[in-house]
């Protein structure tokens, strides 16, 4: 746009570059380094090329984790995005309800992630947890440590509890930026509630929805602590998502080479999908404007 070109601005970004390089580039190099080497201990490494990558790409363990990860991310996105929009539409717009809803809704976002896990771990137990006891009391046989379906339902409920507010708050911000005249015009044009949502609110929320979608995609794809605390990846491996599997491999089994290859593929998948989503959505946006 009309920003002046000035390479001196590099001095202003230099601290960020140094800091991020220190905390991102160096570790990433280490990972790359491990991913192409093998060791028999004693810090003796030798070059193995893309062997670990080939092993990972064909590994059934990796495939299963990846499939579980996509399932998890897909399900929580399918719930949290519509639910977040729905909650945002129902949030109060003025009065004492605004700060109350904002503060209460932000609360789950500020609970440390392992505490989120602990809360749901306790909440879902059939002996001392409200949810578990209530469900069993209603005659539903619920036990998240034994039953795969219950385990999934619990970690999904937990993620919905934890993050739907973020989507809702973002949408609320998008809705707040719609001038009142649009609603008046819709009324004058005789638009139904649905039409008002479809043609006014949804298009105006598009930008924040993109941000919400990307954030939720990225964060749910990296989720580690919360499901680990609740289910420990079980029963069996049924809730072992990518990060859990990776940490198991790297720190539990100390398989550095495969873990590093795993890491790089993992990171690339997130980058690729985020980039693709971003491009598709922004292109769609541009196409609309023609």
């Amino acid at each position, binding site marked *: 746009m009309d920003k002046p070109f000035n390479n001196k601005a590099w001095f202003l970004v230099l601290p960020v570059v140094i800091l991020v390089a220190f905390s991102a580039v160096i570790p990433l190099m280490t990972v790359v380094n491990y991913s192409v080497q093998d060791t028999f201990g004693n810090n003796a490494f030798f070059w193995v090329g893309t062997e670990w990558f080939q092993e990972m790409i064909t590994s059934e363990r990796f495939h299963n984790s990846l499939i579980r990860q996509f399932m998890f991310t897909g399900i929580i996105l399918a719930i949290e995005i519509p639910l977040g929009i729905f909650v945002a539409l129902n949030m109060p717009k003025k009065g004492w309800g605004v700060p109350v809803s904002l503060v209460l809704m932000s609360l789950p976002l500020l609970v440390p992630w392992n505490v989120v896990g602990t809360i749901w771990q306790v909440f879902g137990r059939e002996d001392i947890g409200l949810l578990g006891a209530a469900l069993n009391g209603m005659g539903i046989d619920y036990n998240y440590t034994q039953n795969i379906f219950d385990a999934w339902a619990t970690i999904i409920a937990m993620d919905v509890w934890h993050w739907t507010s973020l989507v809702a708050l973002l949408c609320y911000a998008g809705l707040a930026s719609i001038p009142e005249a649009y609603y008046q015009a819709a009324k004058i*044009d005789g638009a139904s509630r649905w039409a008002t949502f479809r043609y006014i609110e949804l298009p105006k929320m598009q930008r924040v929805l993109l941000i919400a979608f990307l954030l939720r995609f990225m964060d749910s794809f990296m989720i580690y602590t919360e499901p680990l605390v609740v289910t420990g990846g079980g029963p069996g491996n049924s809730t072992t998502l990518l990060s859990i599997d990776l940490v198991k491999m790297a720190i539990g089994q100390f398989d550095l080479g495969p873990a590093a290859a795993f890491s790089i593929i993992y990171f690339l998948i997130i980058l690729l999908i985020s980039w693709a989503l971003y491009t598709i959505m922004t292109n769609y946006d541009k196409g609309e404007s023609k």
Partner: protein
Amino acid sequence: MAEIHLKNLAHSYLPHPSGPSDYALKKIDHVWEDGKAYALLGPSGCGKSTLLNIISGLLTPSEGSVLFDGEDVTNLPTEKRHIAQVFQFPVVYDTMTVYDNLAFPLKNRGHDAKTIDQRVRDIAEMLEMTGELNKKARGLTADAKQKISLGRGLVRQNVSAILFDEPLTVIDPHLKWMLRMQLKALHKKTDRTMIYVTHDQTEALTFADKVVVMYEGDVVQMGTPQELFERPQHTFVGYFIGSPGMNVIPAHVEGNQAHIEGTTIQLNYGYKGMSGSNVEIGVRPEFTSLHEGGEGLPITIKRVEDVGRYKIVRADFFGREINITVPEGQPISERVNRVSFDPTRVNVYQGGWIVDGEAA
């Protein structure tokens, strides 16, 4: 299409208004004729938006009622009133095409596809937007978007009135006059009642058949642009309309003479019982002339502004400014020291309101 009757209408935002100053809109009783173009003109905070919102149904008046063709609509919500509105900032449905935007009000009301298509094409023709029907509304310019907003009102055949709330605010200056002309032409073609809110006198005077001038919650005058110019009912109208506005000078009026600071001016009419300190005479700069000596009020010229078609002379008269317009090309001598008024164009005001004189 409808005649709009504002019956004993008044509005206060306070639950228990105690005096006239508590009213955002003071009591009015007007009948606005079907098919005419009205402009609500006044400075911001004068109550014109309040009045517009009462007509559109966004606001329920605290007193009186609104009748469309004799039917009381005071308590009807906006969507049931058969009105259309063009807002200050263009409101279009971004994701729809121009065609779908225009069809939207009809689709919502369940018209059949054939009727809709016919109406949309007719209106697009009228708005000169046929070529853009398949474009997305988002990429259009502000003036095109305003035309679509208007079009959404025009497609509906049973619209009683189309309201405009300062619709040219965000339009580029060079496009403003074009859009204004198009609006005027559309009004002629469609014969819809149109109500246009603005604080810009040029917009009001060029667009409207009748201009409603508002000031501090009061309708001070409703009339044709010519009436507003020649016989402002209130000194405010005189000030507000015209550039520069009317000269208003405190005077002592007796019979057909006005005495101002020791000078006597002849009036065209006779006035009786004009005592008190709140008597003023008003004369537009266009109906004044400059002299060297002789008759008229003694003045000293402070400066001359050349605005193109004419010059404005700013003159000092006992510490008060008097404006005189002089046709382009007429020289102004340095010895000029008197201004005289065309007696037929001098209005007399008492307490701000015009006083009708008797033929002398």
